[in-house]
């Protein structure tokens, strides 16, 4: 059976759910060890050890790993990967930043955004903003390096009897010419866009930052996360981390409600794994209606408050 090394994503305290999703993909490929690169991250390693499918957790705890700097993490991963057949990471901005750097150090191609494992060397992945699916095979005896498209895999449970956690040292020259300065997280108390069961999103049709409050209010009523189209982010209505689509987040909630979003292909690729898609748009010809399970043509400024009220009772 193949051996798989799965790179854990975390924020220093909590394991990101992208790891549990990528684990589902990893388990389809072989026996999985999870590697946690961090500084003072015993808690994260412990959480990783409880992930269903984790055989072992490798914990590389050193000050240089306090922040996810690709140039620092890649040589460590390249060194650790030598013992494994497969190196996998979630296809989040974290995984996308680091993994190609590792692949280049190892001189092997990378499969980005694995959406399906066909066999141990063959995978499906989306191209052209998800308008085409391609099947690719890793040639010869190349090591397999890939990122798992998060929305394509359900998270594994995180409650198994803990696997062994091994603190390890990695021999690697770590560069110092990248300095991590800070993270400005918009965060807040709302559910996380990528793991929420419900998402309410707004587009250019919302018209202003102030009007976006209507979206937030409905989202709060539904216990939903809030997302946006690129046009809404570009216009400054909401921060970049709310963008859904080809160049934003790929999400798969049970319920997605879009207000004032036209449904450009670059947006739709981010939501096509949603359970139920609801579109509210004043233009009955908007392309989003082609993919929507439920469509309502009308003025969102009338519909949003009515819907909020209807759900309140």
């Amino acid at each position, binding site marked *: 059976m193949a051996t798989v090394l799965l790179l854990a994503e975390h924020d220093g305290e909590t394991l990101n759910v992208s790891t549990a999703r990528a684990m589902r993909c990893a388990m389809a490929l072989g026996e999985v060890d999870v590697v946690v690169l961090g500084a003072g991250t015993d808690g994260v390693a412990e959480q990783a050890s409880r992930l269903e499918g984790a055989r072992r957790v490798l914990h590389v705890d050193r000050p240089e790993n306090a922040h996810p700097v690709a140039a620092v993490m890649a040589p460590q991963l390249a060194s650790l990967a030598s013992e494994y057949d497969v190196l996998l990471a979630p296809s989040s901005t974290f995984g996308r*930043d680091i993994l190609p750097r590792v692949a280049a150090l190892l001189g092997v191609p990378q499969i980005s955004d694995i959406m399906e494992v066909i066999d141990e060397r063959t995978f499906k992945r*989306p191209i052209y903003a998800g308008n085409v699916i391609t099947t690719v095979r890793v040639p010869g005896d190349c090591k397999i390096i890939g990122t798992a498209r998060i929305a394509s895999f359900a998270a594994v449970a995180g409650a198994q009897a803990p696997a062994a956690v091994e603190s390890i040292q990695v021999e690697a020259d770590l560069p110092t010419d990248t300095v991590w300065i800070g993270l400005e997280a918009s965060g807040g108390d709302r559910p996380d866009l990528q793991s929420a069961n419900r998402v309410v999103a707004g587009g250019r049709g919302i018209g202003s930052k102030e009007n976006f409050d209507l979206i937030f209010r409905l989202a709060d009523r539904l216990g939903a996360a809030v997302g946006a189209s690129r046009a809404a982010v570009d216009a400054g209505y909401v921060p970049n981390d709310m963008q859904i689509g080809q160049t934003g987040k790929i999400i798969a909630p049970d319920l997605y409600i879009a207000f004032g979003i036209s449904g450009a292909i670059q947006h739709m690729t981010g939501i096509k794994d949603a*359970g139920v898609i609801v579109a509210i748009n004043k233009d009955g010809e908007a392309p989003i209606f082609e993919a929507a*399970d439920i469509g309502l043509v009308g003025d969102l400024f009338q519909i949003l408050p009515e819907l909020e009220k209807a759900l309140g009772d």
Partner: protein
Amino acid sequence: MKVLVGIKRVIDYNVRVQINREGTDVVKEGVKMSINPFDEIAVEAALRIREAGQADEVIVATIGPGAAQQQLRTALAMGADRAILLETDREIQPLAAARALMKLVEKEQPGLVLLGKQAIDDDANQVGQMLAAQWDRPQATFISGLDLSDGKLKAVREVDAGLETVEVSLPAVLTVDLRLNEPRFVKMPDIMKAKRKPLETIAFDSIGIDMPPQLENLGYEAPPKRSGGVRVDSVEALVAALNDKGVL
């Protein structure tokens, strides 16, 4: 300082991409081709750095067929100083592209390499990171802001959690996101002027890279289509439909 910008010729983002009948490729004949939108932003960023007096030459390079000269000409019309085409009709995947760009880096010795964060055809999002690894230099990926002074570059990165700031020493590789800038429009006189700017064509196979393994392509298919849904005509009907689906 020289700035090297990598661009790619891709199917224009407004085109609805079709798969050919054999399922072996997408239809490219008679289809509008453009500079990958992310790369256009990289060109614009490089030009602004030069216009701010922080670089003296902007070189654009691409790997692709002879027709990719069109995209290089567009970048020259935007204001790049000269262009290099590494010509090949073969499919060049990210690792091979990064190795080829590394050859240009060795030759040109740029202080900065700018690339789009991904190409909208293969959506791989790899070349910049791979080039940075080959070169053993810092990378700042998915950037939406940059500030250059005293050989240090501060970059704002669009990450899933928000906006991250890193500082890298030069030389470095940057991959750009869409919100970094808005590329300028090319004017007619610029297009004329661009015809006289130097464009060098080098056979890809002559640059002497160690050709890495590439992924084997087993075919293309359309994604599963979502079946059409229902239209409702009121908020009450919407709530009823949501209840029907069991999502409330």
